[in-house]
């Protein structure tokens, strides 16, 4: 586990649409050249759910909280929310890179969580 991994998106060089790094062409204009954009600073909580029926990989947890957050530059992300109480839509959170589960082959899976 470390905190050196970056939380990145890509911005279309033609229309400047910001999207997830997995896209090979722009969702809005089909252009295929991008600038990498890094999420910086705090983010705010847009919505969340407390999941009591996890998929198999997460069955070691009785429940966990998933949320969608948005950074100041507009980038959004989904991830686990680690405060368990007093969650409020619009509250500020910080991204931290942590272990979230072991996959079905037993490998450690790390990802950003929001504290």
């Amino acid at each position, binding site marked *: 586990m470390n905190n050196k991994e970056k939380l990145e998106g890509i911005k279309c060089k033609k229309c400047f649409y910001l999207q*997830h790094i997995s896209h090979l062409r722009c969702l809005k204009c089909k252009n295929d050249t991008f600038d990498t954009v890094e999420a910086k600073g705090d983010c705010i909580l847009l*919505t969340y*759910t407390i999941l009591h029926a*996890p*998929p198999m990989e*997460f*069955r070691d947890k009785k429940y*966990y909280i998933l949320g969608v957050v948005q950074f100041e530059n507009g980038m959004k992300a989904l991830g686990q929310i680690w405060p368990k109480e007093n969650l409020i839509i619009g509250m500020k959170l910080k991204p931290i890179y942590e272990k*979230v589960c072991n996959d079905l082959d037993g490998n450690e899976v790390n990802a950003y969580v929001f504290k």
Partner: protein
Amino acid sequence: MREVAIIGVGHTKFGRLNDKSLLDLLCEASLEAIEDSNTSNTDFDSVYVASMLAETLNHMTGVASALVDRIGLLPAAADHIKNGPASGGSAIKNAFYAIASGACELVLVSGAEKMTHITLPGGVTSAVATMTHHNAERIHGASLPSFAGLLTRSYMEKYNVPKEWITSIAVKNHRNGLNNPYAHFQKEITLKKAMESPIIADPLQLYDICPISDGAAAIVMCDANIAKKYCDSPILITGVGQATDTHIIYEREDLTVLNALRICSKQAYDMAKKTPNDIDVFEAHDAFTILEAIQSEDIGFFKKGEGAKAAHEGLTEIGGKIPINPSGGLKARGHPLGATGVAQVIELVWQLRGEAGKRQVADADTGITCNFGGFGNNIVSILVERM
């Protein structure tokens, strides 16, 4: 394009069917549809089989080839259509275009899933969650119920909707399912009981979520010009639509808008030269109660943010402004994934034939479906009318 008619339907009981395999279920529904359409001695041009998880849950590939062999339809063309929970709708769409184009005259569509034998905790949830985006969603522990929870909270916040209004949809669908002999659940529930049920994906509770089910549904479709040769009351498919939306749900501008449904239902309305005002009955894809509320808005029956309120006020009851899910929907009829899109159309066929018994919508002439794939990223809509 040629007009396309439905001339026969077949529907197994939905539920926990321990003594039947996936192929047994497909055969049962298919033979019933063939008998209902009086095509027992007729050659079929093509067969489309809808099943989402045959390989994963039943260790079976080549399911369409196996079906045509088992029920004596050789040498009909046979295809296996997999489009998540919208596989049934996709299969009907493909059959529609095969006939409308003139390539085929007589086609069988059969959808099924066999799920309830999976007893590993989280097993079916994990299999279904393979539809989600791996890096952006799945590795974080996302599942379809979690998306429904995120969506429900967003909707309640944005439109100031109490949870009771959303959960009233489950109460209505259980009441309708009581009169559907094929339904997984034929029992009423009270709003109090539903609101006291365990939290699954907060704020969604147990009774906001459809069950996993075994079951199959099949229809026989043909060139409308020859439909009356086989059947006295053919039902026309006059509109079909299909559209996609972002794979990652948070990349949608507004989580509470189903853009794929807006687009595919417009395609279906335009093809049929109809508007939402012409629709008498709607079969929604209520895998989660919130979805029926939002679908009723984006398919054109209610303003944005008013779908749950409309359900709470009784406007979607049988006899209401627009009856939704007289079958009981996925909540009560059950949700054998590949069968659902076909079962939705069968309910409309029964409604338009006037054969829906105690759940009959009076004077139903026109109906529409929403078959919801992924989490709204691939949606099919089918519009049917009396001939």
